[in-house]
């Protein structure tokens, strides 16, 4: 299988380049990550992140033939050759396919991704009805791989001001949680021309989410919650 991979070595002082590779998949190689691991045996200077190899840790997000995805969830069958691998678009490249996610996680941190409840602690756990629990489906599954934010034109142009689809999905995850009592404060924080309203409903986020989630739907729910509050 022929591949073309983005290479960048910060110590060389040279600009990034594309390097051609050829590797033969062996029996049992089903996913792109299997092939990349085989490639690393050929060239141990090739750098990429990976950990769980089953779409849970979100480490191996990259641009695969022009679309963001997880190498561990991308089937080798049907991939167009030469397979072109580049780092996540719009993120500073540290080395090869490894990007700097500092900004991305700063946005995640800004939405206070933890449960806030000012009421006295109950004796046992805070209970939810099955319907209340169901409202978290499609939100809590986000693995913070950044495939969505790195495919969002609004995030490309305003990475420092727009929270991005991933952070906004996480923000809605806590707004939708019946046990959280900080909804008003959360909405106050998001009600900003850049933080929330840079979203133009292009829906690139939902197109590429490897977990099949819909950040654009979460953003829509936040906007409607703000609208309901103001009317």
């Amino acid at each position: 299988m022929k591949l073309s991979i983005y290479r960048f070595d910060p110590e060389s002082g040279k600009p990034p380049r594309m390097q051609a590779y050829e590797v033969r998949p062996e029996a049992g190689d089903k996913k792109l990550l299997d092939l990349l691991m085989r490639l690393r045996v050929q060239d141990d200077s090739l750098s990429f992140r990976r950990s769980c190899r089953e779409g849970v840790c979100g480490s191996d997000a990259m641009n695969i033939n022009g679309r963001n995805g997880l190498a561990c969830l991308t089937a080798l069958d049907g991939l167009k050759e030469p397979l072109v691998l580049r780092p996540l678009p719009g993120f500073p490249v540290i080395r090869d396919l490894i990007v700097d996610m500092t900004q991305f996680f700063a946005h995640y941190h800004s939405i206070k991704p933890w449960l806030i409840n000012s009421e006295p602690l109950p004796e046992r756990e805070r209970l939810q009805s099955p319907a209340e629990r169901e409202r978290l489906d499609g939100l809590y599954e986000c693995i913070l791989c950044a495939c969505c934010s790195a495919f969002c034109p609004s995030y490309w142009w305003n990475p420092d001001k727009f929270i991005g689809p991933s952070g906004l999905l996480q923000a809605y995850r806590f707004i939708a949680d019946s046990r959280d009592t900080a909804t008003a404060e959360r909405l106050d924080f998001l009600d900003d021309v850049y933080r929330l309203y840079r979203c133009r409903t292009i829906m690139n986020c939902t197109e590429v989410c490897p977990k099949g989630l819909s950040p654009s739907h979460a953003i829509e729910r936040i906007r409607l919650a703000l609208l309901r509050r103001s009317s």
Partner: protein
Amino acid sequence: MDRHSRRLPMFLNLAQIRFPIGAIASIAHRVSGVLLFITLPVIALLLDASLRSEEVFALLRKLLSSPLCVVAATVPVWALVHHVLAGVRHLLMDVGVGSELARARASARVVLLAAPVVALLFLVWGLS
């Protein structure tokens, strides 16, 4: 972004990114908006001039019905139709109508197809 990150390269070559249909409809919305911004003042000036006298009206009418002008006018017609349809699509999606991925893809396809079809019909009508 810290100073270290600013020195690092970044991959953001739009020609090497495979955009979904929604993104194409969105960028065409912007392009059509820019075209309308440029052409609408010209059209308003022409309308203003045509209302000054019967002679100017007749002259402009003759000029604008020339094949070259009809072909040139196809571009703002496309821009107008695309911009209105894509704008309405966005307004509906803002209130949750058709914002589910399959529907959003379908409506993007409709908008991208409808505008050239209307522009083509205008061209046929203008040249006939």
